[in-house]
């Protein structure tokens, strides 16, 4: 049986996480290939619906990566995102989707290695959880 390879959507702020991912690339750091990066101008731009759509369309995990607290280019965008991520986690938990599939991280543009670490950490976490319950709909218990 092939090992499960999760699909993880990462909403990355252009001022920090996206730059950090870039840096990780130019530093030739190796990190899990499961991360699909979506560039956003600020995590404050991420809405509840964006995260839900990702889950609905089959993402096994969603991570939102914004600036360090206090370091947001738009002052408080990452706080808004933090509140929304917490809200979504609660909603998903209540309909039986593991809250751990969605997470918020903070890092600076200089933290290329940290980005690689986050990517690996999230991938490991989702591997432990298994595929999204939404992707399991047609499979039987045995081959999960």
């Amino acid at each position: 049986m092939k090992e499960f390879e999760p699909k993880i959507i990462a909403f990355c702020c252009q001022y920090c996480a996206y730059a950090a991912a870039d840096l990780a690339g130019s530093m030739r750091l190796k990190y899990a290939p499961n991360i699909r990066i979506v560039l956003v101008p600020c995590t404050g731009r991420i809405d509840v619906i964006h995260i839900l759509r990702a889950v609905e369309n089959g993402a096994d995990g969603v991570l939102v990566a914004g600036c360090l607290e206090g370091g947001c280019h738009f002052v408080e965008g990452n706080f808004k995102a933090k509140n929304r991520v917490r809200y979504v986690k609660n909603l998903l938990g209540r309909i039986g989707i593991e809250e751990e599939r969605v997470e918020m991280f903070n890092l600076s543009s200089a933290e290329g290695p940290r980005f690689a670490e986050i990517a690996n950490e999230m991938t490991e976490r989702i591997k432990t959880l298994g595929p999204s319950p939404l992707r399991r709909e047609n499979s039987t218990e045995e081959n999960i």
Partner: protein
Amino acid sequence: MIIADQKPLSEIQDMLAPYRKILLVGCGTCMTFCSAGGREEVATLAGTLLSENKDMTVDKMTIPQQCAVKFIDRLADKVGNYEAILSMACGNGVQAVANRFPEKPVLPALNTQFIGVEKEPGIWTESCMACGDCILWRTGGICPITRCAKSLLNGPCGGASGGKCEVSKDRPCAWQEIYHALKRLNMLHYLKEKPRVKDWPIHPGRIVREDLREVEAA
């Protein structure tokens, strides 16, 4: 929507008695829809006040909502010129304006009545009491908390006759309406549910939604 109607003119004049320069403020939302405090009613009331008190200054302004600070701010550079603000908003609006301008008397021109709908032109009826725990899905889309005079949750009292409420012959018994609706929708089983005791909300109410706040959640 919120339904209101204008206070008796004599009461408005009583409350305006100490003042000569008034800013009359209308509201562009519910009060416009229920024809109680929109641009048109502002004009009419201003005209009436002026015709009765020749030496009075009544200036008019209507903002989209009086319950939101961003719209109330539009009054900021004007209020200094007036002794009092006469608001044609619901109670929320009057208080929001009063809160924004702490040094200014803010007076209500309307009596806020209820949350309701327009039945036909000129007639509004109450349909929601904002009790905080909606059960319309079990009552055929008819609210017994609001539309039964006794807010009964477990069936009608013995006072209905001819399908009408004991309180007034021109009000239907909400429970008979519920019965017909549930029958039509094939949901009569909801009538046999276990008796419920209502958890009444504690007032004043306050709601906090963390996902919308801009400050860091505690």
